[in-house]
């Protein structure tokens, strides 16, 4: 108990210094957590992907489509348990600032392949029945205050014109990382509307952006991918099939340099505060040489001095770490709001919390290492002289 009291009192001996160090730690730990959350948000699509889903797209590029008639041939491939398709719509809701993902999908097969989009039976049926209907994720509906039955007008960019959808359902994500910020509508409505428009480009009629392939056994993903791609080799539209995870990763890899930079910055912040904290502990130790020498005179061993310094350092680091962790939540909320629908998921993960706590621990230990080692080896007689 006396040792604990000594630790606490020592930590609060220079209140201003301790408070400034704590502020630094809080800023560093919360910034570290925030940057980690940002990186996690980037990878949210990857994390949410299922191992039993493959994505087949045009081998040239995502901007090129695939014919609808590939559907039956893919469905016939051995190992394929389900098939659906989707097109990126790229519409604008009022202004460009209101960005969110919109997909024209084949509703029944798509929802069957994505059980994580949880819709009530009534809403599901209403969506399936209404060709002009749409469903949106809960976060998106909350953001714009949409209710079932509302009309949602979108200005098409890839598909010009004003497209108005009737909101038939609002889905909830089954997991924390399920994307609740997208709008799904009928692919048939899209393709038929395009067909009916005068001067419509033939490439946009019955054209599919991606096929989503359901497989029964994730272990056969590579084999089935190969089978599908072999099927369309030397055709006008060759395919590239990959796991949903790999497909999502290909988007992330486009901005990999930014992610690496963010991760580097998050680590640099930790290293900087480590140096600041080490400086604080070194100053602290230097001021107390005579006290440590006195303790040694009284019979306390070098290990006791190490415990005192390391304990004080850990106490400050953990206090700063815990406050930083707690502050990460409101900060992530603010950043999540500010980035709007840019990230489907923006929430602090358990792993980030663990890493923040670990970072605080490492800062505490490393900052105390040098001064503790020095003080444990200090010559008692010269240490005692410092008091004068």
């Amino acid at each position, binding site marked *: 108990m*006396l040792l604990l009291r000594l630790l606490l009192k020592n930590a609060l001996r220079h209140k201003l210094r301790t408070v400034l160090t704590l502020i630094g730690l809080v800023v560093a730990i919360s910034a570290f957590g925030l940057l980690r959350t940002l990186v996690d948000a980037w990878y949210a699509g990857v994390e949410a992907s299922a191992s039993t889903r493959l994505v087949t797209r045009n081998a040239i590029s995502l901007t090129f489509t695939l014919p609808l008639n590939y559907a039956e041939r893919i469905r016939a491939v051995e190992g394929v348990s389900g098939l659906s398709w989707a097109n990126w719509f790229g519409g604008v809701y009022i202004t460009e600032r209101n960005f969110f993902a919109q997909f024209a999908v084949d509703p029944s097969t798509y929802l069957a392949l994505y059980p994580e989009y949880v819709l009530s039976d009534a809403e599901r049926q209403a969506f399936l029945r209404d060709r002009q209907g749409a469903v949106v994720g809960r976060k998106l509906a909350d953001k714009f205050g949409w209710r079932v039955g509302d009309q949602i007008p979108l200005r098409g960019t890839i598909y010009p014109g004003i497209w108005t959808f009737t909101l038939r359902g609002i889905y909830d994500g089954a997991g924390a990382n399920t994307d609740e910020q997208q709008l799904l509508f009928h692919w048939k409505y899209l393709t038929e509307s395009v067909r009916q428009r005068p001067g419509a480009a033939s490439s946009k009629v019955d054209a599919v952006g991606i096929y989503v392939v359901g497989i029964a056994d994730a272990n056969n993903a590579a084999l089935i991918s190969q089978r599908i791609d072999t099927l369309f080799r030397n055709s006008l539209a060759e395919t590239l099939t990959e796991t949903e995870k790999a497909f999502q990763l290909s988007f992330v890899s486009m901005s990999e340099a930014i992610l690496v930079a963010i991760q580097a910055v998050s680590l640099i912040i930790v290293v900087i505060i480590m140096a600041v904290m080490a400086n604080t502990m070194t100053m602290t130790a230097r001021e107390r040489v005579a*006290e440590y020498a006195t303790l040694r005179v*009284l019979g306390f061993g070098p290990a006791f001095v190490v415990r005192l310094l390391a304990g004080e350092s850990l106490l400050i680091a953990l206090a700063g770490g815990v406050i930083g962790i707690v502050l990460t939540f409101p900060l992530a909320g603010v950043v999540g709001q500010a980035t709007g629908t840019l990230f489907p998921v923006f929430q602090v993960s358990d792993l980030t919390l663990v890493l923040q706590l670990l970072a605080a621990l490492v800062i505490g230990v490393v900052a105390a290492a040098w001064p503790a080692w020095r003080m444990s080896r200090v010559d008692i007689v010269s240490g005692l002289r410092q008091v004068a």
Partner: protein
Amino acid sequence: MNPGTPAESSPLIRIRALSKAYQRGAQLIPVLQGVDLEVHAGEFVALMGPSGSGKSTLLNLIAGIDKPSGGCIEIGGVDIADLGEGELADWRAANVGFIFQFYNLLPVLTAAENIELPLLLTGLTRRERREHVHAALAMVRLSDRSDHYPNELSGGQQQRVAIARALVTDPQLIVADEPTGDLDRVTGGDVLALLGDLHRQLGKTILMVTHDPKAAACAERLVHLEKGVLLSDGVGLSS
């Protein structure tokens, strides 16, 4: 504890051919040379000498906080020059009480907590430790100041807390390095009177470094050092 007559008892401290030198670059600076000294249990010895004479070094060596360059220091039958760092720390905790010129109290601990510190190294329970601390505080007449921090105490009171801390483990030897050096004459006199009481009532062996003849007069034996050599060993005024 009954001290007995020094002349009749075997010496508590037996020092033979003690030498100490410090290395300054390539130069070896001798501080103590061929010191022989015996101190019996219950003696109050004052070590005197001019600055740089080696009296504090001798005290540090006897107290086991410094290592000699040569010779032997036998205290209570133990040659402390042969002890390792850990053994020496344990030996100090069990056998020596320290009083410093500048008190060396931990400023963040109260008087009672400062006195309790050495007891943390014993197997005493918290309650037993508290009892010992109260007894030590009563002995130095500071029971009413147990919860005061060092900066709330006068110099003389701080030194009395330091004396209580030195006593609380009931060591056989108390070493005091200029215990009145930072105090005014009256307060210094009080502290010396307290040390004298401890010597007489508890029979503690006290080794005190001082350059103040009036402080030395409280001791029953004076040892003079000059340039690292023991010059004279005589009887003090108090005896």
